[in-house]
């Protein structure tokens, strides 16, 4: 099990709150896939999550970012994109 950075812990909490998931944020592994077999998120969640991220970090996610698939691959990749693009 790999340790979470403080941003990862914060975003894990944001994911659980935004999507009303019935899990403890600490259970989200940084490298676990967010969609499909992993956390089981879908496009409705992606949309909800993009809004929460834009409100918290001022980062407007778009799917034609060259690394769009990579952005949502895992908590870790999402946090890397937030780090790179955040305006607040």
């Amino acid at each position, binding site marked *: 099990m790999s340790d979470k950075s403080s941003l990862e812990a914060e975003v894990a909490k944001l994911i659980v709150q935004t999507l009303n998931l*019935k899990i403890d944020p600490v259970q989200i592994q940084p490298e676990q896939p967010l969609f*499909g077999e992993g956390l089981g998120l879908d496009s*409705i969640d992606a949309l909800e999550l993009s809004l929460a991220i834009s409100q918290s970090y001022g980062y407007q996610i778009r799917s034609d970012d060259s690394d769009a698939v990579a952005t949502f691959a895992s908590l870790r990749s999402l946090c890397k994109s937030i780090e790179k693009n955040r305006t607040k």
Partner: protein
Amino acid sequence: MNTAALLGPCHPDRALAWENGHPITYRRFLSEVATLADQLPEKPTVINLADNRYRFLVGLAAALVRGQTTLLPPSRAPRALVQIAREYGNSYCLAVDQETIEGLPTCHIPKGEWSATQHARVPQIPVDHTAVVAFTSGSTGSPRPNPKAWGSLVAVARSTGARLGLKASNHLTVVATVPHQHMYGLEATIMLPIQHGMAFHVGRPLFPEDVRLALTEVPSPRFLVTTPLHIRACVTACTRLPQMECILSATAPLPISLAKKAETLFQTGVYEVYGFTEAGSLATRRTVADETWHVLDGITLHHESGRCFLRAPYLPEPVLFPDLVSLQGPHRFVLHSRGADLVNIGGHRISLGDLNHKLNEIEGVQDGVFFLPDDTGTSVTRLMAFAVAPGKSTEQILSALRDVIDPVFLPRPLHVVPNLPRNETGKLTREALLGLLRERHGLDRHGA
């Protein structure tokens, strides 16, 4: 033989589609359709998997030219595709990329092969030819086919266009957040444009920023075809969208307050279209102005034994409304609620009976039930489920479900329980399920 043209009035050198900021003309489209039609295998039915809206249309049109029927599977879940493929054994699949369906031969839609000198003849399609088969979720667990004659698709497109005041001289370009493999998407983003000399963006933007970029990639005047979910996202993000002629929404009722905000923020009219797979689009309203829905020209409504039916010249028989409505004469109605068995999750509709059937078919599941908890008003309300499945974990059951249903319908959460609180007649009441849920929450809190 009665026929209707593939295209409405249009100029061959105007854009039909916009891809990466470049136009694809109607002339090129007709050439590509003729080329592909010659290459299609001799089979009656086809599953068109193209995600690119233009490639999908080239495949659909080529199939029409060859007298073939395009099947629109209810979901892209692997088993759902295989099930349709099994029922329509003599099918093939049309794809742009490497995607295939187990057990079906694949034909590839070529990218951009066309001849500018080819004569741009518009094909005529018999009006009674079954152009597409859309599937609805039935309570029995197997998808129910809804064949759509070419004449009915054209009639719905023309009457919707007349209501919205669309004509070739408007030169509108559609940008759509909805998939073209469902009835609303097919009607509003494929049939409406081709029958009115309009153009469309080939993509399907998801995030507000995607929607903004797609809109800026196409020329004005623009027409956004979307859902309440995407409208809410763009309003919440305060996205500065380019000037639009009109926004069209469907798949779930649009709250008036949201429509008002969208009209103010985006400085345009927000319209809704109401329909269901069995009948197609059938009514419209401008949400901020009217609670009442106005049916499209040619449609009439009537009550019979307490139920509401509609008739249209292109429907072989009266069709029953799946939702609760009250009529205000033969041409107007107010929508009250969705039928009890139908649930709508973020614009995706399914029958609870169908979901229950699929859950109970999973190996090791002895009893199971889905239900929709009360709306909390925060985010999209998701389904929950209980399953009696000794020796099975929630992960195993979820994994099996993922194979057969769309991810939006996966239960959140799924509780594995020793038994379900069925009453003496074997029924599960909502109260009993809510009680079971409270009990589970109590157990979870105490770490059991």
